[in-house]
């Protein structure tokens, strides 16, 4: 009966078709692209999902240079770097922003970026923040424990100030941090403790934290909004791992003091870099974009849009930042090479110690 065999034949034919489609170049399923850009007129910026600038700033870049910026945001900082590594033979764009010092040497070791030295006026400031010849520092900030002032005032309890305070019995069950494996601020805090306690001492510190009722949330927003008492979600814990720049957001609507603050003795300094991607179609446009990221216009916009400090010393920091978001004078530090060499090992150890 032909009709019975037909189905089988059809399936086989279809499978063959599908295979041909995969291996040869004569298929047109995918031929619905947007117009192909003229070379040099477009530049694609690959960045993490926290990248943001005020309306119209990228348009100003287009007005000045005639180059249109297309932004691609594949995920958080870790996902960004790994995607760049994975696609380095066929890069996702021309320039990248958002590789931080915890991933910097991984990106340079893998050859994701090519050397570029910016000639923008702020380049000298940027150079003070490291990055080597492949990466240009754009902004920086501190990841620190934040404290809910109101909670401690109400309980008439002195606020903790150091990492060691956090393990004291009076602060039991008060701290929540994001997971170091799944969250980049979480990892930054792990690095703060490694910087403070040394490569052999941090495990004991975390054991003590855990004994003191540490809560590990999945990500920053989960910790800040659900577990933290001062973030607006009304959670139960008055200590949370966040940024030194978070407190200005807790100034009450009618004015007054910020209701939260950062513990500046618990910070890790995070620096974010930009670079020209290896294999970029428009490397010149990418360089111009990096210069633009160092311009006063962008640098002044960074605090309000991305909650980071600009590297440029020639732009004004918002007043409420001077008041409520000071930087730590002595942040903890771990060299980028060490981080790359030990990342997996530290995270595995951390998981074993804290998550079990």
């Amino acid at each position, binding site marked *: 009966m032909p009709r019975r065999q037909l*189905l*089988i034949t059809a399936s086989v034919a279809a499978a063959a078709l599908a295979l041909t*489609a995969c291996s040869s170049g004569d298929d047109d399923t995918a031929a619905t692209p947007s117009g192909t850009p003229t070379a040099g007129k477009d530049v694609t910026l690959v960045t993490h999902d926290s990248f943001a600038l005020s309306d119209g700033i990228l348009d100003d870049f287009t007005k000045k240079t005639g180059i249109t910026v297309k932004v691609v945001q594949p995920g958080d900082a870790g996902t960004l770097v790994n995607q760049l590594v994975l696609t380095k033979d066929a890069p996702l764009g021309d320039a990248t922003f958002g590789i931080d010092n915890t991933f910097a040497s991984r990106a340079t070791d893998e050859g994701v970026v090519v050397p570029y030295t910016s000639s923008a006026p702020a380049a000298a400031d940027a150079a003070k923040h490291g990055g080597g010849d492949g990466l240009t520092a754009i902004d920086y900030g501190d990841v620190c424990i934040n404290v809910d002032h109101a909670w401690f005032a109400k309980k008439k309890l002195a606020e903790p100030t150091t990492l060691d305070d956090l393990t004291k019995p009076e602060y039991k069950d008060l701290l929540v941090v994001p997971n170091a*494996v*799944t969250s980049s601020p979480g990892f930054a805090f792990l690095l703060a403790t490694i910087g403070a306690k040394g490569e052999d001492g941090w495990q004991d510190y975390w054991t003590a934290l855990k004994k003191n009722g540490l809560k590990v949330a999945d990500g920053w927003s989960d910790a800040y909004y659900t577990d933290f008492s001062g973030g607006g979600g009304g959670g139960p814990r008055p200590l949370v791992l966040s940024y030194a720049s978070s407190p200005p957001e807790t100034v009450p609507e009618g004015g007054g003091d910020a209701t939260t603050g950062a513990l500046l003795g618990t910070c890790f300094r995070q620096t974010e870099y930009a670079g020209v991607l290896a294999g970029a179609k428009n490397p010149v446009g990418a360089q111009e974009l990096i210069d633009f990221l160092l311009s006063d216009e962008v640098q002044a916009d960074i605090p309000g849009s*991305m*909650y980071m400090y600009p590297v440029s010393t020639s732009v004004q920091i918002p007043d409420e930042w001077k008041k409520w978001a000071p930087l730590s004078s002595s942040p903890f530090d771990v060299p980028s090479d060490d981080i790359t060499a030990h990342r997996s090992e530290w995270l595995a150890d951390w998981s074993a110690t804290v998550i079990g």
Partner: protein
Amino acid sequence: MTTLMTRPDAASAPQGGAPAPARVGTGQGMVVFWVAAVALPLLFLGVFFAWPVVALVARGFVTDGSLDLSGFVDVFSRPRTWRIVGQTLAQATVATVLAVSLGIPGAYVLYRRRWRGRAVVRALVTVPFVLPTVVVGVAFRSLLVSGGPLGFLHLDGTFWAIVAALVFFDYAVVVRGVGGMWERLDPRASQAARALGASPWRAFRTVTLPALVPAIASSASLVFLFCATAFGTVLILGGLQFGTIETEIWVQTTQFLDLRAAAVLSVVQLAIVAFALTLAGRARARRERALALASASDAVRPLTLRRPAGSPRGDGHGLALAAAGATAVVVVLLCLPLVNLVVRSLRVGDGWGLDHYAALGSTSSGVPVSVWTALATSLRTALVATVLALVVGGLVALVVSRRPRRALGRRAVAGLDAVFMLPLGVSAVTVGFGFLISMHDPFGLDVDLRTSGVLVPIAQAVVAVPLVVRTVLPVLRAIDPSLRSAAATLGASPGRVLRTVDLPLAARSAGLAIGFAFAASLGEFGATSFLARPTDPTLPVLIFKLIGRPGADSYGMALAASVILAALTAAIVATCERLRTPTTGGDW
């Protein structure tokens, strides 16, 4: 006897004059049609699913140009791997069993009975299905966290919190999947059993339940796949100590770029999924037969709290009430997180207000577009995805509903069915990263599909296709083959049989399928987050951005936007349900 009113499966019909199995057409046109019906979906799946996944997994197994399977030894020698596999199975199995046992009474009450407000509740239970996990995380955890309204249960960060959230998400899958079948089931079968003296419970157990098994198995396999690949839910509610294969693939791929370990885990995931699908397929096949279907208007009876006047005791009223009670409890439980979400979205500082809703039109909070713009993008994308899913899924369902006489043919059909379920069982991260390494200049064309945004509706459609298939297929399979034979005997060409028998019946479930596919596309986050253009984010992607920024305002806006997403979904699902054509079933 379960065959009271169901007709014998045509494939096993003994008499010589038995109706032929569903006819595959013989004309030239039909040949082209069936080839296309198989080829088009396969091509779609091959290019936009199989190829990227194989490309990425292959990277993990190829070192310096040669095959290297040492990853298996390495990964399986870690005790962690076994724990993760165990946890994946435990979470998915428990959640599936719970969702099915709660969903069956739900399907009865929401689809087999008629009552005031039913449409609203039907739409309501579908809402969780589309909410972004990050929002459900907030809605759930702020209930369970110590000091929260349900903090006394001490469920925060436990296995049961995860299971509860999984059931919350997938309850609708069972209710809709089973309900869609149940409301068309001819009531005369169980009425006959009752007339012959069976108790209501016995009639249900021996007549109705067996008839529903295919639909139940279908839904259960969907729920299992959703649960086994749940990602955000597991991380937010349980954390990595409850890590599953899916979360581990995510960690290994996005955080460590250990593609070798990720590839091994992907293979393990695939094996589990294939095993579950085979199991469900077996359960289905054993019970699948042509059923006497009625139009919903004939089969559905009103639900009253009081026993209908004049009806005797033991008429099954108690059973109906028990189902109604169980469903009421479940609906209340489903509502808790949703209500919590609404309440929180109205919280402004120390007071209450609509400020967060008023802010939805602004772009002040560092997001590229307003919530309304993102909503429009979401709707547009989901519409394209739904059309794609309907065409592809409809064709697959049509092909798979055929019953070839030869074993080989039957196996090919079953294989096709299973293959289209796979996208639900494979990690979104694997697909997303797979796109990155396969779509830069596909087929030598000079287009970078990865950053064009074209892939967003396609990725959503890949996920929605199985939902369409699973919704339409049980109805198509239940079509009595004698209907088709009768049409053919009366001189209808195969094409005409397809048009006049299969299509109208399938179209009746189209409303359900459209609603489901649309909801799934609207809520899709995993693959979309990799592919969406930042300048055109979908609403779930925008909500994720908002909730990632500090400040009570961004948080409030994220919650308000989620409420909008939920309300919109409910409205769309309710509208789609109304699309179903109420044709009479009396003519066959």
